[in-house]
């Protein structure tokens, strides 16, 4: 009884507050302040406080050249991979969204799997599949793909392809089929209809897919580090320098200088590239002068469609799905060996493993909840343009920045700032801040997109029926958007559990808060000596647990289909 009375009191209080302009603006403004104070400014200030250490790099041309080469590699790989993603993603998304077979819904689910596999486990899985004698290489009597840039590209393709497919499937489902039908009735064969009508209309989604895969490729650290071998891209360079520093090979000043230098260039270059895409994207035109009647007709009908679908499926299974899940093979083998009881009894290297799993999932949960609380007012502000059109649009852009900054650079600069300015800050807090910064755009974006889909009419109707703003939100907006919000939360959770780059950058040596991906990377790189079966089991367990958690969440969030 008492609790209900208290709840009612709270609700009426919140209702009263929500109809006060001042209270409303206080919430919005504080969400902006929090965003600047904890997410946007610390990395920038972190680089600024260590700015002078850059001199270290200028004094050592060979280090500078190494850093610049690594960063150059990062961008080349990101561009090539994103282009391949789009080229391979369009037919796949087409097949999923337009195909008529009921098997396609299974394909649709399969396409998400590599997205769920934590990237460190994914990296090891690919290493086994392409490089070690147990995988596809066994057919060729050696190592098919040695560690290095080709394997890095394969890896990046594997983890960014599902993201691209997801975005494009969404775009094709939202797209009004009427345009394509109109084009057909005007005489265009299907291929021409796609080229001249569908693709220009879904262009924003094509660009968004490209940007997402580009950003993911630039940021990914853990898995890349596993498969890179002697090859260095930006994040791997930062990781190597860090390991050199921990191993006493370079001085702290050199380490900091190199980190600041590489982070700064990565951040500036990626911001420039994204600004360019943002400005030039809308101007990009698909030229349409005429058609190639015979060629395009042939491309449109059965033979071409069948071979296109076959190639698409082969690419998906051979390059994305099977390599991503290959790690389950040694994991199953390990279950039959003494490694398994050893793991369960948490002896030897396994003592850290279980703790790291706990840290990972706990961190993921905390970050998801915090992100939701911090991001909610921000999302409303963006979706409903609460502060006017221009400020809301500006915030919308700013929120995206953490997405395009390579996560290891973000983590490094973040930890510089907090460790310098607030040395008493516990390391767990730093971890939370770093993960919050990386996942913040995902949660805000998914929530604001969901709110935008709720028609303002509905809110206004509730208002005219007597609901106060807080009640409108709780009774109308939230019920209508909860599934999208939950799926946004799942994305944040997965992202946090996979995160390696920023985590490594934040953690001090021998920290008790090493997350599962960090531990796995150490095993694979033999920083901590581990056998193949142990690594396989470690990665397999991580995948399995993530699956179980996500499956449970999916069950909860599955749309019941009534509205």
């Amino acid at each position: 009884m008492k609790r209900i009375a208290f709840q009612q009191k709270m609700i009426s209080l919140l209702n009263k507050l929500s109809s006060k302009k001042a209270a409303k603006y206080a919430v919005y403004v504080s969400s902006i302040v929090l965003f600047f104070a904890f997410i946007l400014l610390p990395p920038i200030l972190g680089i600024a406080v260590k700015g002078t250490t850059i001199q270290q790099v200028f004094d050592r041309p060979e280090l500078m050249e190494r850093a610049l080469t690594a960063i150059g590699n990062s961008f080349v790989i990101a561009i090539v991979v994103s282009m391949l993603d789009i080229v391979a993603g369009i037919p796949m998304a087409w097949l999923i969204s337009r195909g008529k077979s009921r098997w396609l819904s299974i394909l649709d689910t399969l396409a998400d799997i590599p997205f769920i596999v934590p990237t460190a486990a994914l990296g090891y899985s690919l290493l086994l599949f392409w490089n070690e004698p147990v995988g596809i290489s066994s057919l060729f009597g050696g190592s098919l793909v040695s560690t290095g840039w080709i394997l890095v590209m394969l890896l990046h393709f594997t983890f960014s392809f599902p993201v691209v497919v997801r975005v494009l499937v969404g775009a094709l489902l939202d797209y009004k089929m009427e345009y394509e039908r109109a084009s057909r009735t005007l005489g265009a064969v299907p291929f021409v209809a796609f080229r001249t009508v569908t693709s220009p209309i879904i262009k924003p989604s094509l660009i968004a897919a490209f940007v997402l895969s580009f950003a993911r490729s630039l940021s990914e650290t853990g898995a890349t580090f596993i498969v890179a071998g002697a090859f260095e891209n930006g994040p791997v360079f930062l990781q190597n320098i860090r390991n050199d520093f921990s191993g006493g090979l370079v001085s702290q000043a050199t380490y900091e200088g190199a980190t600041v230098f590489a982070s700064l260039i990565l951040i500036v270059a990626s911001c420039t590239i994204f600004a360019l895409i943002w400005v030039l994207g809308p101007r990009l035109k698909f030229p349409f002068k005429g058609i190639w009647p015979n060629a395009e007709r042939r491309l449109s009908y059965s033979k071409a469609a069948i071979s296109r679908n076959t190639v698409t499926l082969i690419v998906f299974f051979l390059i994305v799905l099977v390599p991503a899940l290959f790690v389950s093979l040694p994991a199953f083998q390990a279950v039959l060996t003494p490694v398994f009881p050893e793991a369960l009894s948490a002896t030897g290297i396994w003592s850290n493993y279980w703790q790291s799993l706990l840290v990972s999932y706990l961190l993921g949960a905390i970050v998801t909840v915090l992100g939701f609380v911090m991001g909610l007012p921000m999302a409303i502000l963006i979706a409903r343009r609460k502060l006017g059109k221009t400020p809301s649009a500006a915030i919308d852009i700013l929120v995206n920045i953490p997405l395009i900054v390579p996560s290891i650079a973000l983590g490094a600069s973040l930890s510089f700032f907090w460790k310098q300015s607030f040395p008493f800050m516990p390391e767990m807090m730093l971890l939370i801040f770093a993960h919050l910064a990386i996942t913040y755009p995902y949660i805000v974006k998914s929530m604001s997109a969901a709110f935008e889909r709720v028609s303002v009419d509905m809110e206004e109707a509730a208002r005219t029926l007597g609901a106060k703003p807080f009640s409108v939100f709780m009774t109308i907006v939230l019920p209508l958007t909860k599934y999208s919000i939950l799926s946004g939360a799942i994305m944040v959770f997965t992202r946090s559990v996979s995160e390696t780059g920023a985590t490594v950058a934040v953690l001090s040596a021998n920290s008790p808060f090493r997350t599962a991906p960090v531990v796995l990377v150490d095993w694979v790189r033999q920083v901590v000596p581990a056998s193949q079966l142990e690594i396989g089991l470690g990665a397999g367990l991580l995948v399995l647990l993530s699956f179980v958690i996500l499956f449970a969440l999916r069950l909860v969030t599955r749309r019941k289909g009534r509205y």
Partner: protein
Amino acid sequence: MPDVRVVNLTKKFGDVTALENVNMQVRDKEYFALLGPSGCGKTTLLRLIAGLIEPNGGEIYIGEKRVDNVPPEDREIGFVFQTFALFPHMTVWDNVLYGPKVKNFNLAEAKTIGNEVLELVKLHERLDAYPGELSGGMMQRIAVARALAAGAKILLLDEPLGQLDAKVRNEIRYEIRKMAKDLNLTAIHVTHDQSEAMSISDRIAVMRKGKIIQVGTPQELYMKPNCLFVAHFIGESNFLEGEVTEITGKDIQIELRGGCKVRACISETKEGTRVVLAVRPEVFTIEQGIVEKENALVGKVDKITFEGTVIRYVVRLENKDNVVVIKSSMAEAWYELGTEVTLWFPADKSHVFPYPEAGLTEEISV
């Protein structure tokens, strides 16, 4: 220019049968309407003819050619969508030239065609505008122009006026008909608006629940509806229930509910059959007081609605049935609420239908 023929056409969406064994022939150069309530299958039929969806059974012919396996781009049709579906990323000019371009006409020829059709819809001065900048009426005309420019021989119009204001709608419907006639096109126009269908079509097919129930000129449908549904859906009808008591060579006698006897035009029926008598509201003559006439019904004015051109009375008969009567508001005297009046109608202006097994309400429900 070709005719369009469908034979035993069937279309299912999952478990729902949208069209069942539909047969129809649209003549060459005819302006033909598919009329029916929403969900009756009229748009499905149009999309099947266009090739936008594939039938589960039956045949479709355009001219002599069987087309049910021909993709839409090769059927030489022009389709005007309810939402217009003008390509938002192209200007008016590029939209109109889209057909000629994808059909690989040479550029000079394409431009000539583009100019001609824009001239036809009188939107030449807006050729640099994007669809988002046009009014509904303009978008509609561009949608037609675009279909024409692609060299359509058959114009398929799916509720082409549905998105327009009433005033614009009335203007544009005649424009479209005139254009189709001037260019000797065959046109199939889908609508749920009976006045739209009546005012512009050469012939109309009335559809209900996946079937065509009557095909005829607007006059035929209005004067000689073949069933209760058409009598109700086209125009307006009063339905009076009764029983056939006598059949003579020239007419029949019906005893209405409540005992009143009327004579109606001859129809295929037997004595003792339960029937429904349909009389249109404008057929009645109305006069104050009790008047001795054949086919007279007595009642009180229960409701009066002034609609401008006409005045509409609801008269409550002695047997509690309501009858709607429409009179010219300027040409005739008005009657006050509660006035006792007599209504009568000529026997040959009525229709007799057997009482439907499923009940009257079900039979006329859309």
